[in-house]
């Protein structure tokens, strides 16, 4: 999975990932296309479905591009919400803790 092309880029998520943030997040992710990316979700207090969709679409895209897409850190709220709505992110969470 790990890429040998470029250095890994980090994307830190905003505390509130609501309807408004979905478009912003989409653009930010698109801008990172082509690089390995680590998502820092440690500051997330609230996350809505639309932003989870964007992130999962990102994971799917990165997978197709054979690049690495991981969550370097996740907040409790982020983990619990994704778990609640049945979105599996375990395989994307960085294991080296």
């Amino acid at each position, binding site marked *: 999975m790990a890429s040998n092309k470029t250095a890994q880029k980090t994307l830190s998520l905003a505390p509130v990932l*609501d*309807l*408004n943030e979905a478009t912003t997040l989409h653009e930010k992710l698109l801008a990172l296309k082509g690089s390995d990316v680590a998502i820092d979700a440690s500051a997330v207090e*609230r996350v809505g479905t639309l932003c989870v969709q964007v992130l999962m679409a990102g994971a799917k895209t990165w997978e197709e591009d054979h690049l690495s897409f991981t969550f370097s850190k996740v907040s409790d709220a982020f983990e619990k919400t994704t778990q609640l709505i049945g979105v599996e992110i375990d395989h994307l969470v960085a294991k080296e803790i």
Partner: protein
Amino acid sequence: MKKRVLTVDDSRTIRNMLLVTLNNAGFETIQAEDGVEGLEVLEEANPDVIVTDINMPRLDGFGFIEGVRKNDRYRAIPILVLTTESDAEKKNRARQAGATGWIVKPFDPTKLIDAIERVTA
């Protein structure tokens, strides 16, 4: 952290009831008297949820909801409409205008708080 509720209603009685109910339930309450004032205080209030009446002078609830939904910064805010059970047509119009949900009158504090809890994280 207290949740902030913006209430928009022209009736002083309802405003007082909302205020008392919301404060007792631990919310921070900001009040406006009609749709125009509601839109004016939106930025200052920066609410987590809005509760609005429909029949109001100057700008009614439908117009107010549309105004909020057109506002790039605040369009994601859940909006609850105070409505009567019998008035399905108004409920429908409010929904089309972008209302998130409704609270059926006569005013019931429990229903109000429940509805707010339902649409907020």
